């Protein structure tokens, strides 16, 4: 095996903070003794939940840290591109030298292509900047190279893309342009920080394929940061699992995923909905990653660990090497006292689920008949109307966003709607709730028509259908206390005061697994998963018959996703509520849904029983969608 391109040894860094009590400055650990190697042509995945230090590690390698970060120890050795020249320690080179390395030897792509590009600079110019800086090209020569790069990353019309501003490109195209920009300096190492998290499933597969192809052509070392186990399994050669600023397990992907040795890795794997045992609830990892500054002294995972023992609190865990490695490079090791302890083998399996709640005999609680939604293409301003009068013309027909879709939902049933973004999933939900106007069709809720020609539903109909939104960080009013958030709905709908008094609200919080103290807090004091629990409690406060969930877990980590999915299961078993579940995650569909609708461009292309549809998809689009999902091997 050749020398590694990049060797990270015992990298530790902390954040300068002021102590809350004594006001004295102190350093809070953020990364502890991170060590790994990256070889040319290899993909190393950094895996873990948010807040574990994955992105921070990548930024530390680039020395692009926030101001309050302090390196404490360690080495980051970058092999020279010329033979015979010694490697450099990136933590010790000058800032000028570091600038020659950034973009030239190591390039980085980021999670949010929408915000990571300069909004007022043309794509071509942003790429050209790198070419002029690192490859000494003139602007004219750079322009030709820009087109070649944009062509290489698979943009259909490179000239148009080069002349475009970021806002004129779609999310996938922007991420391709970001990759072109990263490649412009012809780097040896690519740091990809959650490159597909903000993208659709189908796009995700395309972008990951692109990165792999380019990596093979150029023999780049890729550090792939992700929280998605399936992405790791499909795209990485080796994986390092991070928890609370430490690497807790690392090794070749197949070994780590097939024989996970650290309890955290096991818990992550077990919480995937794909791994659910039929009839059992998902295994869930209780709690969450402790915030910076409150990490346990010895084993950092100990408070959440299912197999902890008293010894774990006394002494820091050792690195345990697992057998089977032929070279040091393929070494599989874990940071735990109980590695190889056979009694630990299975994590405790999930509780049995209560029997299926759906009542096939009963009439549907929600019926959607030929529902269509169309957005107006032009503004309805004064001049527009004058022009319309002048030409005596109707508005140009725009294509419908939702095109005559029909379905039923029975009490206690979960119906999933899947499809790419822009296919009309969310628009359907909004039309059912009358949040937007629909063009034609009917929605019948519990025997009463709520959407239809000339229909104005009787006051209070919203009690029966509620919604939980995708982003728990944006969907709760930041200035309201939880008490107000929960009681606003029942009050507005004129429910009796006993439905939202203190006791009722405490019971409500208890049902979603939150303590009574939460009532007097503000949303920002809670984590993403807790906020989504609050959002669910808010919806349940009026005891609806139908709950529309719009991607409720896609902004959450896997372990938190498992908690939320189990909660939804439990609530359905208790109340017989029906879920309309919008998602693009087939693992979630498999775990939660009784039936599935597949939507493409506003139409339902396939519908059916979950198991049958996933096993034996009929429509070409469903098959394509399923094929693009990375699967755990």
């Amino acid at each position: 095996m050749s020398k590694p391109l990049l060797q990270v040894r015992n990298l530790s860094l902390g954040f300068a903070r002021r102590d809350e009590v004594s006001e004295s400055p102190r350093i809070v650990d953020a990364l502890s003794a991170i060590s790994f190697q990256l070889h040319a042509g290899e993909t190393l995945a950094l895996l873990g939940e948010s807040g574990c230090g994955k992105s921070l590690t990548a930024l530390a390698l680039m020395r692009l840290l926030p101001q309050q970060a302090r390196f404490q120890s360690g080495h980051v050795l970058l092999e020279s591109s010329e033979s015979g020249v010694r490697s450099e320690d990136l933590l010790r080179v000058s800032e000028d030298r570091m600038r020659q390395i950034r973009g030239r030897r190591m390039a980085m792509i980021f999670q949010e292509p929408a915000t990571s590009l300069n909004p007022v600079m043309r794509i071509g110019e942003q790429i050209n900047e790198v070419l002029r800086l690192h490859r000494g090209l003139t602007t004219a020569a750079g322009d030709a190279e820009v087109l070649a790069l944009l062509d290489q990353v698979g943009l259909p019309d490179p000239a148009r893309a080069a002349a475009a501003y970021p806002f004129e490109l779609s999310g996938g195209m922007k991420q391709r342009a970001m990759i072109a920009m990263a490649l412009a300096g012809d780097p040896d190492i690519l740091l990809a920080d959650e490159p597909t998290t903000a993208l659709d499933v189908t796009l995700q597969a395309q972008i990951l394929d692109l990165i792999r192809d380019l990596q093979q052509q150029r023999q780049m070392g890729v550090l792939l940061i992700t929280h998605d186990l399936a992405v790791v399994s499909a795209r990485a050669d080796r994986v390092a699992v991070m928890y609370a600023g430490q690497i807790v397990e690392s090794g070749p992907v197949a070994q780590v995923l097939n024989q996970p040795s650290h309890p955290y890795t096991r818990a992550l794997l077990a919480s995937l909905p794909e791994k659910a045992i039929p009839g059992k609830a998902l295994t869930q990892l209780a709690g969450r990653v402790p915030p910076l500054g409150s990490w346990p002294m010895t084993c950092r995972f100990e408070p959440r660990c299912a197999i902890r023992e008293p010894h774990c609190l006394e002494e820091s865990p050792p690195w345990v090497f697992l057998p089977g490695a032929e070279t040091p490079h393929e070494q599989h090791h874990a940071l735990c006292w109980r590695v190889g302890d056979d009694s630990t083998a299975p994590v405790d399996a999930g509780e049995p689920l209560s029997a299926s709640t759906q009542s096939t005999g009963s009439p549907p609680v929600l019926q959607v008949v030929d529902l269509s939604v169309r957005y107006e293409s032009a503004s309805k301003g004064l001049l527009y109307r004058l022009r319309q009068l002048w030409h005596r013309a109707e508005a140009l027909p725009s294509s419908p966003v939702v095109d005559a879709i029909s379905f039923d939902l029975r009490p206690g049933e979960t119906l999933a709607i899947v499809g790419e973004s822009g296919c009309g999933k969310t628009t359907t939900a909004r039309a059912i709730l009358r949040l937007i106007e629909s063009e034609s069709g009917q929605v019948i809720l519990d025997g009463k028509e709520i959407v239809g020609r000339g229909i104005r539903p009787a006051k209070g109909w919203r009690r029966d259908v509620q919604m939980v939104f995708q982003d728990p960080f944006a969907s709760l009013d930041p200035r309201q206390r939880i008490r107000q958030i929960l009681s606003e709905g029942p009050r507005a709908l004129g429910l009796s005061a006993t439905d939202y008094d203190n006791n009722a609200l405490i019971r409500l919080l208890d049902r979603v697994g939150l303590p009574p103290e939460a009532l007097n807090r503000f949303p920002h004091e809670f984590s993403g998963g807790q906020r989504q629990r609050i959002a669910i409690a808010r919806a349940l406060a009026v005891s609806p018959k139908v709950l529309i969930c719009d991607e409720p877990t896609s902004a959450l980590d896997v372990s938190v996703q498992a908690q939320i999915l189990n909660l939804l299961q439990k609530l359905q078993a208790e109340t017989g509520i029906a879920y309309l579940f919008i998602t693009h995650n087939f693992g979630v569909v498999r775990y939660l849904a009784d039936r599935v609708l597949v939507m493409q461009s506003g139409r339902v292309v396939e519908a059916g029983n979950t198991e049958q549809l996933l096993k034996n998809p009929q429509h070409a689009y469903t098959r394509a969608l399923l094929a693009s999902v990375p699967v755990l091997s």
Partner: protein
Amino acid sequence: MFAYILRRVLYAIPILIGVNLITFALFFMVNSPDDMARMQLGVKRVTPEAIQQWKAERGYDKPLFLNETSAGVAQITDTIFYSKSLTLFAGEFGRSEDGREIGREIRERMGPSLAIAIPTFLVGLGLTVSLSLFLVLFRGTWLDRTGVVLCVGLMSISSLFFIIGGQFIFARMLQLVPISGYESNPLVAWHFLILPVTVAVVAGIGSSTRWYRTLFLEEIGKDYVRTARAKGLSDTAVLFRHVLRNGLIPILTGVVVVIPTLFMGSLLIESFFGIPGLGSYTIDAIAAQDFAVVRAMVFLGSGLYLLGLILTDLSYTLVDPRIRLK
């Protein structure tokens, strides 16, 4: 684009009528034509006949809005509001109470006003943007902190202090420039202008620098700046090539809107330095209760302000490619 401008111009008309109506109503409620006549004639010579004659000479003997003694269209046209206020739309400013033609006065006084306002605007903008970029380049250091403290200090001092202090030190003690006055010959005029322009720039520097610094710092925290640094660009290249252009977008809103109103001059500076511009004209008219002049200046000011708003929208399309006017 054209449709957008046309629509905005059409919207401006009712706004201007409203402004006109409000100034008219306010002025006549506080100050009836009889009061105006007494004020102009002086207390001693006032007789009811003299007042009537004064009003008749200037057309103030008509009803305010509706003339019931006339017939047809004249019911509306033969009123004070129609003859005095609505004629402004045709560009007829009429005469001031002392008989001078307001339109000519405005044209003559525009020059001195612009001679102060344009250098103040350009030097002030250039200086505050450069200073704020300088502070941002040294963000987090003692230089930045000292700069912010100085800005707050400058903001907290009344501009009257700068005017009087400047006059005392540079004109009285050092005798470098005249205390006040104006000369239309450009070779001599700079002598009179340099102190008022400096004072106006210094008085405005604190708040703008501090505000622009905040805007630039906000831009620096954004993702695309991290991307630019990850490319290997130097701090100055990041600042001038990426942050500056994005940061200028919000600065533009505050700046373009005042460009047309530069014509109006500065009330304070012009009065204190004896500059015969539109600012001192307005102040004098208010003191003399000269309704005709105040009315004309308010109309001119609101018209220019509306023009500034339209220009702001147009300038957005130049610097921010995401904005298209429809």
